[in-house]
């Protein structure tokens, strides 16, 4: 199943303000762009101009991008209390 279908199974309470921001000026020259392949929610996608495009809505709050990005492009925090993903069967 594609990631869009997988995350559509999940329950989210999406905040208006993003909990993660990405300074994509680092991305075009990033040698590994590991966020693109490792983010299990596919929040990072290839962008012809900026290298990488980020959207926070489907985030599973795992912390992977926080660790794989070694260029300081990712500012990572938890969503505000009560917002974000909510697992029921995990």
């Amino acid at each position: 199943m594609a990631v869009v279908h997988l995350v559509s199974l999940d329950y989210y309470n999406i905040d208006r303000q993003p909990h993660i921001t990405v300074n994509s000026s680092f991305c075009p020259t990033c040698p590994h762009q590991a966020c693109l392949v490792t983010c299990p929610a596919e929040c990072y996608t290839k962008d012809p101009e900026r290298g990488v495009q980020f959207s926070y809505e489907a985030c599973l709050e795992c912390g992977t991008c926080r660790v794989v990005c070694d260029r300081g492009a990712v500012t990572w925090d938890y969503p505000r209390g009560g917002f974000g993903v909510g697992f029921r069967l995990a």
Partner: protein
Amino acid sequence: MSTAYDLVVVGAGPAGSTAALVAARSGLTVALLERGDHPGSKNMFGGVLHTHSLNEIIPRFYEEAPLERAITRRVINLVTDEASLALDFGHRKLARPPYNAFSIIRSRFDRWLAGKAQEAGALLLTRTVAQELIRGRSGAYEGVVLQDGTEIHAPVTICADGVNSLLAKKAGLRPPLRTDQLALGVKQTLALPPDVIEDRCGLQAGEGVDMIYIGSFTRGVGGGAFVYTNSRTLSVGVTLNLADLSRSRLRPEQVLELFLEEPRIAELVEGAAPREYSAHLIPEGGAHMVPTLAHHGVMLAGDSAGFVLNSGLNLEGANLAITSGRLAAETAVQAYLDGDLSAQSLGRYRTALEQSHVLADLHTFKGAHSFLANNRIYTTYPQTVASFIEEVITVGGTPKRRLHAIALDHLGKVGWRDALRDLVASRRYI
């Protein structure tokens, strides 16, 4: 709401709720903070809870806790592109109190355990994100600041905030996480009627099985897969070393898909409805990633301290979280009795952990992490074992060879030097 407590515990996972329960029982005033809607709503794992740690704190907890199935069988599978081999262990003892392990769903279980802490007198605050530790002028930690700026003061804080532990990280109490010391777990929860689960897995009513898989479907990425039976669902997932995964350019859900396409797994999940998709990191560095555990006014427990034991065949974290939460709380209670909350006094927490299964086991298996980083375990050896067995059991009308001749031949294909080195390493490490 009073904002001063004897103890503030950040995170209502197994480590935090246990710490809050034990401290509240001993008469400390405790605030237990949880960022999720309710305890468990942010949490995922495989998984099974091994009973021993919680049974010490809440005797016969299995009579009241929301558990899925008593695990009565354990199956270890080696999988190659074309063959599979299983070691299937079952024991009737596992079906009787005090049991060995239960499958659980965190959203239900964590909520229940936090409820036990509340019953003991702890104040649970949900939808509450601790932003940072407060450090006093003397250098001692004095509680936490919440996301909205509210301060919660306490002479002792237990960081039980999980693998990402931003609190410990921001205060510099823990070095940054490394990709080679982490595994990414992704999982699908799939619904099936209980009798179908029992039928397909060969189980008695209410009983469950814990199945792990090592082999070629990870395409050489360190890690493996699991299937756990819940009452009405199967938890099917993969755990993948993050450094290997980044290099492999495989996506995590693709590896899970490859696993689900394995013929045996496809049969097992046929007709099952996917119900949830989840992901979480696992600290897998073992003893090597355990930081300083106590400071003036702070202790780290559970995943925030890196307490996960991955011996290759067992993945234990929830039970280590529970024991470490208990020991941190007991250390705090004793420190209050002694009237000494210094780093040295709270440092007894480490000694207690060393005397418990937590640091004792992490120490015993301290070489497991580097041993498991060897990708021959995931590719070459399953293939070797499978072809050995294939030759032994295949009846082809050609003259048979003796077992040891077959074994030597197949091991020879691995390369003697590597095989010997790995054998020695396995004795030393596992």
